[in-house]
């Protein structure tokens, strides 16, 4: 386990695994898109617009998945103080924000023909908007604190505060607006959605998750390199200082 957590080993392992993961993500997403447009039927109520669901729902799932990844990494930062956990946290925040943004925009584009407006203050949309704001706050925190170790701990604390708060926000927003349709994929007593629509959705969700894993691993690699660059440039600057010392003293 410790071996996998060593950053140098992690760089080598991901370099070997990433091409395969990209291949898998590409194949799954290709199959999913084919099923979305060729296999899945148009909804009898919503017509063709139901095809937006095949990206909207996976994006919503990833917006929560990214937060889960950040939470686990935040625990890694606070409990084990592991540099890889710091890198994973920092890499996940912009990706989470990106997929949450996709979820919001596709939801809006789906809502316009269905509800007649670009935005309704519906409970689920509003909760996702608050989640988006939390992501933006985390990114702002990462960008403001320069020292990476401090930034990682501050972001970890804020992420964990968010974990406690997100269910409360969800509950309060639901309470605030009880007029919305019940969630239909993960309903008690099995999915209510027809299999011809469920399969494309599951394939798209798997493909999107693979895409997220690829992007996340690549971003973690970048963060490892950035921390290495930071340390090496300090060392180089120190070495340069030592090299300059004798002439300065001789001149004085």
């Amino acid at each position: 386990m410790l071996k996998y957590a060593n950053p140098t080993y992690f760089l080598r392992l991901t370099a070997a695994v990433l091409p395969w993961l990209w291949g898998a993500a590409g194949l799954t997403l290709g199959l999913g898109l084919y099923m979305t447009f060729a296999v899945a039927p148009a909804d009898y109520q919503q017509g063709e617009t139901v095809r937006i669901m095949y990206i909207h729902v996976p994006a919503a799932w990833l917006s929560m998945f990214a937060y889960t990844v950040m939470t686990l990494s935040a625990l890694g930062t606070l409990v084990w103080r592991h540099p890889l956990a710091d890198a994973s946290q920092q890499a996940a925040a912009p990706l989470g924000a990106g997929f949450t943004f996709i979820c919001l925009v596709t939801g809006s584009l789906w809502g316009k023909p269905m509800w007649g407006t670009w935005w309704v203050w519906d409970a689920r949309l509003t909760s996702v908007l608050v989640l988006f704001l939390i992501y933006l706050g985390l990114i702002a925190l990462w960008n403001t604190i320069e020292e990476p170790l401090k930034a990682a701990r501050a972001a970890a604390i804020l992420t964990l505060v968010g974990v406690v708060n997100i269910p409360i926000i969800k509950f309060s927003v639901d309470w605030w607006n009880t007029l919305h349709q019940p969630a239909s994929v993960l309903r008690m007593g099995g999915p209510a959605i027809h299999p011809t629509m469920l399969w494309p959705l599951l394939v798209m969700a798997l493909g999107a998750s693979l895409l997220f894993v690829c992007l996340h691993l690549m971003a973690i690699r970048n963060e490892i390199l950035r921390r290495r660059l930071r340390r090496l440039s300090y060392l180089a600057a120190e070495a340069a200082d030592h090299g300059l010392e004798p002439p300065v003293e001789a001149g004085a």
Partner: protein
Amino acid sequence: MRALAALFRRELRLSNRAGGGGAMGVVFFLILVTITPFAIGPDLNLLARIGPAILWIAALLSTLLGLDRLFMSDHEDGSLDLLEMSDAPMELVVLVKCLAHWAVTGLPLVVATPLFGLMLALEGDALWGVAASLAAGTPALTFIGAIGAALTVSLRRGGLLMAILVLPFTVPVLIFGVSAASAASGGTVPFLTPFLILCALSLGSMALAPFAAAAALRSGD
């Protein structure tokens, strides 16, 4: 325990001496209440309907206003380091500082609310509803804000960042605060349901936020 009581008195004295942070908060609150009718028009019926919401948003903003100084002045003059080295656990120090801060900034808002509510054409029950909901809810705002204040304590321009970090987490307090305030003047929901949830939010944040804020203060150095 005596040390904590001394800390509480010190906080009160400091805020009184430094230009009266509480008075400034109330003035800001009054200004927000005053400029809202300029934005939406002087229609008293409309103002009475959205009055609780205006008062709550004004309270939220004026609570945030003073919060960035909660730890920053102590961080600048080094007394935060002394507090950290003292025998009292940092969590309790944070709790006491938050309570003192609320007594100076939150409590005056609650006292001023019935008066400002009159300006927004609120009557009888609605006035007391808003005041009661603010009394129950503003501690939660202070404690949630303390986490943001602790995270941004060492940043020179942390005020705006603090607002960005804290405001999403105040959504539940705002929702239940405004519903309790509106329920007091009649509505579909009984007053007690949102009011008790609001109390729970305040007590919960009072129990948990000191740990997060203390952890953030420790990680800052």
